[in-house]
């Protein structure tokens, strides 16, 4: 269960970003999570409150936006989103594709007050 250590790392990043922000509390945290990131959204959501305890993120809401797999075909140039993770262009069925999205694990923003 690496999601706990990831949640702890993320909370540390949030705290760091708030160093010069004065007295404030984090209300909401937005995370972009790719389906090929190796991070399980449910586990991460479960671990976040534990990691946030005693920090300025305590009680904050975690909003996870899932990033689907997006492929760019090297043959036909189409961008496509396979339903199941598969590296196959959905337009021309070529397997010469680059994964241009789906591996993200990014803390995009936080709302503070």
């Amino acid at each position, binding site marked *: 269960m*690496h999601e706990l250590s990831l949640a702890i*790392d993320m909370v540390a990043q949030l705290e760091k970003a708030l160093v010069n922000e004065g007295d404030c509390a984090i209300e909401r945290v937005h995370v972009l999570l790719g389906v090929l990131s*190796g991070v399980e959204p449910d586990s991460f959501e479960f671990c976040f409150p534990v990691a946030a305890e005693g920090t300025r993120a305590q009680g904050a809401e975690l909003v996870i936006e899932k990033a689907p797999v997006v492929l760019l075909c090297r043959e036909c140039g189409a961008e496509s989103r396979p339903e199941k*993770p598969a590296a196959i262009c959905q337009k021309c069925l070529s397997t010469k594709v680059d*994964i241009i999205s789906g591996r993200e694990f*990014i803390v995009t923003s936080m709302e503070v*007050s």
Partner: protein
Amino acid sequence: MCKECGCDTDNERTYFGKSDEHSHDHPHDHDHEGTSRTITLEKRVLERNDQLADKNRKWLAERQVMAVNLISSPGSGKTTLLEKTLDALKGKLPCAVIAGDQQTDNDARRLSGKGAPVHQIETKSACHLDARRVGFLLPDAVPAGIRLLFIENVGNLVCPAAFDLGENFKIALLSVTEGEDKPEKYPALFSMSPVVLITKTDLIPHLDWDRDACLDMIRRIRPDAKIIELSAKTGEGMDEWIGYLKQLTT
């Protein structure tokens, strides 16, 4: 220049409160009373690990060491494969091993005495190796002259995939006893692994192993994967594997 407060100096923060929707740059404190504000971060959560991994990669490249990160379920035969691999490469290709396990140094003991330095990382509660732990160990684990470093990750198909250790690439192992649909169930790892080893092929006669389905599934996730089918026990496929490793380092 900011329409709301009239200043225009550099500051990375962006504010998007409902009642004060504007972005601006200024270094002084600025009250937006009664509203919450949004701070844009756009940071990779694994940024620190990735930086350390890049440092490890540079360290290895400077010494001309090829590093592979072996990832699989527990019991897929990583250690047995490494035992046989070290035996086969002894005196031919200088290798080193970093083995990760939650507890015990059993794997390191099994791999020692085969002509390659072996170092163990006990990860305790952690389910994966990370770049920091590997970086600490590199100077001891990889003496001068080593050309190939095997990093045997903790047996787990999920967590190790998220952590770059500074390896050249990942190798996924899949034993035939696990079922052919593992690549579909764990696409993150298989999509990151240019090499997939199908292990324990000697057991196929005892199983309902659908080889074509497995190869097809691996290729759906990773079309360019190099797939090597082998049995460390009988030696089947080992020549191809050893040949592949030798060619990697020439």
